[in-house]
């Protein structure tokens, strides 16, 4: 059970301000999506929470505890990337067991077995990442992260590399797994439809700022800001029956 609170996070690379005074909260077990066009600073925000980069100013709290200066490898935050980032020189078992071995945890074998069963990837233990399908790779990446019981799960456009049909299935599955694991999740995407169907809440980002935060329904039907209207408007032309795609 973790709640994440970000206060006035700012980060610049050289002269470009990538994020400016970001404030947001990820509640217990909540699925929060950062939605915005590419280059709006959403991935930078994700990396700030991950701890692979540090903010120039502002603080990050996990359950009220200040973790701003804690490096990535001590933060216990899980991440699944767009390209899954599986270790190519390790087989699937070794990939999933990596975090457990690092932490010298007991019962590595049974824990790996359990998570592989949960994610329905049993039997792939001896294979190498390049020998399995994209969908399987994603599950392995999820298993590798979830097996160490991270406080928060970060998802960096994990569905953008799979084809449309599979994307729909994986999207539902992601949501199911997140529910099952009861884990606070920060999801980054530029796909409006994806955000509307998977999130508990959506934070619209533009130019390094969070424009508006709200439930998918409110973001879509009652946007407060002009930018949100504009950005979400792109899909209303495309999708005639929104109920059909399962807007939340």
């Amino acid at each position, binding site marked *: 059970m973790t709640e994440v609170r970000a206060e006035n996070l700012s980060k610049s690379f050289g002269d470009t301000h990538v994020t400016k005074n970001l404030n947001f909260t990820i509640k217990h077990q909540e699925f929060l999506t950062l939605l915005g066009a590419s280059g709006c600073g959403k991935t930078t925000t994700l*990396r700030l929470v*991950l*701890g*692979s980069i540090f903010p120039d100013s502002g603080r990050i709290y996990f359950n009220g505890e200040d973790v701003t200066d804690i*490096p*990535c*490898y*001590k*933060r*216990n*935050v*899980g*991440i699944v*990337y767009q*390209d899954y*980032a599986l*270790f*190519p*020189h390790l*087989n699937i078992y070794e990939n999933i067991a*990596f*975090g457990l071995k*690092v*932490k010298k945890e007991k019962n590595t074998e049974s824990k790996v077995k359990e998570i592989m069963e949960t994610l329905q990837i049993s039997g792939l233990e001896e294979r*190498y990442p390049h020998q399995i399908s994209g969908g399987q790779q994603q599950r392995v990446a999820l298993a*590798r*992260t979830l097996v*160490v019981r*991270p406080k928060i799960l970060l998802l960096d456009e994990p569905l953008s590399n799979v084809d449309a049909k599979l994307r729909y299935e994986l999207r539902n599955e992601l949501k199911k797994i997140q529910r099952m694991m009861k884990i606070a999740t920060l999801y980054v995407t530029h796909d409006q439809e994806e955000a509307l169907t998977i999130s508990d809440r959506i934070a619209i980002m533009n130019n390094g700022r969070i424009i508006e935060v709200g439930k998918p329904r409110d973001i879509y039907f009652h946007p407060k800001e002009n930018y949100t209207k504009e950005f979400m408007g792109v899909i209303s032309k495309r999708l005639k029956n929104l109920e059909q795609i399962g807007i939340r």
Partner: protein
Amino acid sequence: MREKIILMLVLLFLGVLIILPLCVVFLLSIVPRWSSVFPTSFSFEWWLAILKPKFTKVILNTLLVTAVSTLITVGYAIIASYLFAFYDFRGKEILSSLILSPTYVAGVVLALGLLTMYPLIRNTFWILMLGHFVVISPIVFRCVLSSMIKIPNNLIEASYSLGSSKANTFWRIVLPLSKQGILSGTVLSIGTNISELSVSLLLYGAGWATIPIQIYLERGWGILGIAGVLSTILILITLTTVFCVDYLGGKKP
């Protein structure tokens, strides 16, 4: 058909230029006196002559210099590449061209500079090492860096996020994934260390001659037989090490 003929011609050309001289070098080592166009008799007297302490010292010197220099060079290349591939710092570009610059400067020039700068270690093993390091490390650095730079940053971050420290990530992720570059860097290092002449010729002190230096000296004195034997040994050592390292690297998952 025409392609085949061209290919044959190219191979023949390469053969005459590379393989044949190597064969002649071996021939040189088993011909006692080579005065006519074709050798008239064969013997192993040069090979027996090489057993004198003077020459065995030369061979041992070469092996020692190559082994120590390769260890230092490859170690340095791994650390430098790691810093260049995964960290950003001010002046990175300039430093990288500085590190690579000895590749483009004549070895003798560098040797002259080193000789003047480090009079205290003149005529010792260490100045020879230093010279080898200066000319060979840039090549090995470039080789290792090119493989490390290909490792996606996401893999490193994923490893950190799983609780793996920087040191552990280096051992478990970075090193295994740059194995190919490190191995070919090692082969390059062994090959160039063993045959280095331009720098070591100016730097070597009494008792520290290596095989290439001795070959050069013997040729100067007109004793081609000894030069032939030393050259053959040089070729054999190089081929064996390259083969061994390649064999080690061939074991992929």
